[in-house]
């Protein structure tokens, strides 16, 4: 045992971590902070709409059911870099009268790959910097593309690392606009990028399979859970002809905490399962299963409302606050293949521990909360 400890310590201490990328990390942290604020605003809007009795607005916020005509949306264009574009450019285009461009470049020591870009208003010369991220999009062979996304000044930026077997993508907005996104090679890999107003819902993103030179005729499509103000995730991809999972909206919990009403609603559909709740939202991937869980867990906690999922044998969950007080028990609700338990905690505080019980009251498992 001691040998293993010594060996591990010796081996890991030999790793030279290099210089800390402080500036890039702080920039990334600001992006995360901005995204949280956007998510909080969207979640709060949805809950307010539900609580004060505007079901039509709540319905609208569910995104995929948004009426298809929004004439106020600006016209979006997206093309590969034109001749003369700066090195590393992946895509450029327009949002109404504004011009945008997005690219990648290596920055810092050790070198990190960072997004560059801007939205420019020609009439005034005003520029919105899009160079806010220094992490690359995730790549998983199971997906046509992995995305890094963020929002700034009401503009959403999506950068996708494209799988080798995709020829191009078509992006459809709910107002009927459609973009063809052609992958461009930058820094040794193929990427697509698009820029749009955050409040412009996206209907679907379709990957046309093939290669750089040919199209196979096969497609896979992601229908995001898209609500104004929340950046859509493209995680669940449906094959051509595959029946789409039904869209089911289920309120799974509500109540009052600290005198304020709270509500959690589950939206099942082709995007998987998304929960919208006071303080934010969380989605999971396509099959509807919150996968890889062997135990009751909780995550996605935001100030005062959160949720967890539980295995089939869990009848209820109790949460212990940092001061030792125990909240009334929470009962999991079946949503798709998951069993979710929404909860609210007083004082804007994260509970300290969860404990899961069987129907007979036997303690099954317990653990501490993961934050943030």
């Amino acid at each position, binding site marked *: 045992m001691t040998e293993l400890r010594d060996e*591990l310590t010796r081996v890991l201490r030999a*790793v030279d*971590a290099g210089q800390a990328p402080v500036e890039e990390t702080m920039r990334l942290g600001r992006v995360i902070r901005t995204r949280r604020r956007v998510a909080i605003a969207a979640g709060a809007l949805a809950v307010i709409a539900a609580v004060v009795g505007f079901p039509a607005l709540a319905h609208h916020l569910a995104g995929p059911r948004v009426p298809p005509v929004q004439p106020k949306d600006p016209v979006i264009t997206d093309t590969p870099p034109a001749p003369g574009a700066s090195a590393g450019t992946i895509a450029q285009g327009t949002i109404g009268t504004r011009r945008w461009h997005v690219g990648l470049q290596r920055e810092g020591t050790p070198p990190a790959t960072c997004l560059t870009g801007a939205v420019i208003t020609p009439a005034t010369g005003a520029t919105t910097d899009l160079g806010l991220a220094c992490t*690359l999009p995730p790549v998983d062979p*199971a997906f046509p593309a992995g995305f890094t996304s963020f929002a700034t000044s009401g503009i959403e930026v999506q950068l996708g690392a494209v799988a080798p077997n995709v020829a191009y993508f078509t992006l459809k907005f709910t107002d009927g606009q459609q973009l063809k996104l052609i992958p461009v090679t930058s820094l040794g890999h193929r990427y697509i990028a698009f820029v749009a107003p955050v409040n412009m819902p996206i209907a679907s993103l379709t990957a046309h399979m093939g290669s750089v030179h040919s199209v196979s005729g096969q497609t896979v499509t992601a229908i995001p859970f898209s609500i104004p103000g929340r950046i859509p995730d493209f995680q669940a991809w449906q094959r051509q002809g595959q029946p789409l999972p039904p869209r089911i909206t289920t309120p799974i919990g509500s109540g009052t905490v600290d005198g304020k009403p709270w509500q959690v609603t589950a939206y099942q559909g082709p995007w998987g399962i998304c929960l919208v709740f006071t303080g934010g939202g969380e989605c999971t991937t396509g099959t509807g299963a919150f996968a890889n869980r062997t135990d009751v867990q909780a995550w996605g906690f935001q100030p005062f409302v959160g949720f967890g999922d539980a295995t089939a044998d869990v009848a209820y969950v109790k949460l212990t606050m940092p001061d030792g007080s125990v909240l009334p028990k929470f009962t999991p609700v079946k949503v798709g293949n998951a069993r979710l338990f929404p909860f609210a905690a007083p004082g804007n505080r994260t509970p300290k521990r969860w404990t899961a019980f069987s129907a007979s009251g036997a303690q099954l498992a317990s653990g501490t909360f993961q934050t943030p």
Partner: protein
Amino acid sequence: VKEVAMVAAADEEFAEFMRARWPSMVRLAYGLTGDRGHAEDVAQAAFARAYASWSRVQRAGDPDAYVRRIVINENRSRFRKRRVAEYFPGVLPESAAAQGADLSERDDMMAALGRLGARQRAVVVLRYYLGMSEAETAAALNCSVGTVKSQASRALATLRALVTEGELR
């Protein structure tokens, strides 16, 4: 002006904290991921999250533990969200120190760890590198103490077998 000054002071404090703790967090992440590129990415993501909530991290009283927890969570969420791999174009630079005589032994140890599943590897790193107790490890990995015991036992058996059979040489 006062607010701007406070923000600047907080930024400077964070920068100092990150510079001091960066090596230890990268090493922890390297133990968890077995990949230098992923390790730096996980560590950076953890520090970025800490920066995004810096006032809360400071209030928590133990920023080290807080960031360490995020590193563990970041590594877990890489698998949870099925966004496991991240693409690093080009070759990540290895420093001269890492290319030295220890490289072979380090490779062996990391190769052995790499034979373990993600959870077993995490249990080994938390228990035997960070020196956490079984209860602390269970809390960090959000599982029961029994799971930690069984995973540690299996992991050690696997490591022992690998060493005994000399598979790694």
